[in-house]
């Protein structure tokens, strides 16, 4: 098969969990990577080495362990900055996950700054957002008297941009959208939309939670197009939980008021009043997720070593193969675009007569892990009139044989529930 990672079996050996057997001696077939990715040994080892040999608090400690820990933490920031080609490493803020990063922006926009959102202002999102890119904006607009608006979706799973001129207007203060949909797999034209949003002076926020694992990111280009903020989450790029990334254009981060207060985010503190540190520290209150940032550094190094272009090609090859296999199952309908070159690697589908929970359960009894439910994208499900769906999602360690196992498992599911 064209496009697969050449050393796939070697790569699989990097991921200890792939050796795992489940109930009944079944080998694990992990097809839930859009939910969270598995971790290579090097990420785990880097974290262990830190905890066993270099653990100390950062910035504040003057001793050798403190210096080592600080250096490792800040080196992780450099690695992440390089991974997304950030114009400046100071523009990389560590959060606990993508959700916190999105909330950081939405929450601070309620308070005084050149970007403050108030009565009469509008925030534009899309109907295919993950809840983490919906609820923060609902909270912001409800609390400030602003209005939330959104792009709808076309029947084939694309953003409906036909009413962009009605949606993105002089009243628009923020446009926030996902780059790659975690439900439909759709890849959105973020640069194009950013350019449009910039014409009306809106702040442009991109949720790259599903893009970062799969696509090479060039923030030089994206920021030139008008993207002001981009977020992603560590645990989906083979890093640990507890760590997320917010990139923000320097002028934006400098102008936003602080989010969380405390710890090292200050310049000076008096009881009456405090002043704040420069970016990125201004947004990193308290002891940051140190070992998690260091683990994430190892993770993006690992991905960079394999090459994001190669990973993207692999994902496309597997996705194309999966789309073909899935469509061979009678009664199966894929939600979202059918052209693998135009989409990410998460494929949600319905199987007539069998509820997603029941599909997932039968697959699980064969060792195949998929996700069933609304995938934190209830509005997108509602748009297509489905209450929940089954989702398979691959990653750099996924093999065609695993897709075969899934397809076979789906045939078996149909016969188990005696449909068709």
């Amino acid at each position, binding site marked *: 098969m064209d496009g697969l990672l050449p050393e796939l079996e070697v790569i699989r050996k990097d991921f200890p969990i792939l050796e795992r057997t489940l*109930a*009944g001696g*079944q080998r694990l077939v992990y097809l839930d990577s859009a939910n969270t990715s598995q971790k290579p040994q090097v990420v785990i080892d880097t974290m262990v080495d830190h905890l066993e040999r270099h653990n100390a608090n950062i910035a504040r400690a003057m001793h050798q362990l403190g210096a080592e820990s600080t250096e490792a933490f800040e080196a992780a920031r450099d690695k992440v900055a390089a991974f997304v080609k950030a114009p400046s490493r100071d523009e990389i803020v560590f959060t606990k996950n993508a959700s916190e990063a999105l909330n950081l922006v939405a929450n601070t926009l309620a308070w005084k700054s050149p970007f403050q959102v108030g009565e009469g202002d509008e925030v534009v999102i899309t109907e295919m957002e993950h809840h983490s890119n919906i609820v923060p904006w609902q909270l912001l607009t409800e609390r400030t008297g602003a209005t939330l608006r959104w792009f709808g979706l076309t029947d084939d799973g694309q953003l409906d941009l036909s009413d962009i001129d009605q949606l993105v207007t002089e009243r628009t203060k923020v446009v926030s959208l996902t780059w790659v949909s975690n439900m439909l797999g759709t890849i959105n034209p973020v640069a194009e939309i950013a350019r449009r949003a910039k014409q009306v002076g809106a702040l442009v926020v991109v949720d790259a939670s599903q893009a970062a694992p799969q696509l090479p990111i060039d923030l030089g280009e994206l920021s030139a197009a008008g993207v002001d903020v981009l977020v992603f989450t560590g645990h989906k790029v083979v890093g640990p939980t507890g760590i997320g990334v917010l990139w923000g254009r320097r002028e934006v981060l400098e102008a936003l008021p602080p989010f969380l207060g405390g710890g090292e985010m200050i310049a000076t503190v008096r009881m009456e009043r405090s002043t704040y540190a420069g970016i990125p520290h201004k947004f990193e209150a308290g002891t940051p997720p140190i070992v998690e940032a260091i683990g994430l550094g190892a993770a993006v190094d690992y991905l960079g070593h394999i090459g994001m272009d190669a990973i993207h090609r692999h994902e496309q090859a597997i996705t194309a193969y999966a789309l073909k296999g899935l469509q061979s199952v009678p009664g199966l309908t894929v939600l979202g675009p059918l052209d693998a070159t135009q989409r990410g690697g998460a494929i949600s589908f319905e199987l007539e007569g069998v*509820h*997603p*929970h*029941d599909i997932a*359960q*039968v697959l699980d*009894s*064969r060792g195949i892990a998929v996700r*069933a*439910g*609304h995938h934190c994208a*209830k509005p997108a*499900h509602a748009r297509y009139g489905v*209450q*929940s769906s089954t989702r398979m999602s691959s990653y750099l360690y996924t093999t065609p044989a695993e897709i075969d196992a899934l397809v076979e498992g789906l045939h078996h599911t149909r016969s*188990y*529930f005696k449909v068709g």
Partner: protein
Amino acid sequence: MSTDLDSLYQEIILDHYKNPHHAGLRAPFEAEVHHVNPTCGDEVTLRVHLDDGPDGRPVVVDVSYDALGCSISQASASVLTDLVIGRPVEEAMQTHEVFLELMQGKGQVEPDEDVLEDGIAFAGVAKFPARVKCALLSWMAWKDATAQALQSDPALQEEKS
């Protein structure tokens, strides 16, 4: 592997799933609730109709529902109605307790067929933590609706106390 799956999807469950008892929404009713399983989006709208029994204590006259969900959640709604319709509320609540215990027992609780009837088929579900919520969705909705019905009707409430 198939054995485990079969302990979850017992024939009784699949039968109730394919042919749910007492399905649909009916009047009269004193309370209607809408419960959702936030994780998967499964939903149930459920109505309760109570009335005074011969001894003056409230009785479950009807439970009607509209459920969207997996086989386990649909079958459990069906079994629920079989077990509570026509029973004094107090007795039905006890059945609820017994079912809850079974579900939260991690597969260690021996089901009592005299009390649970077809409900014993759910013993296997207790071994699948992720599915326990499915089995409990309509039971929780019923308890909620019944409490509301008792509260909203002073007559029933008086009788009860």
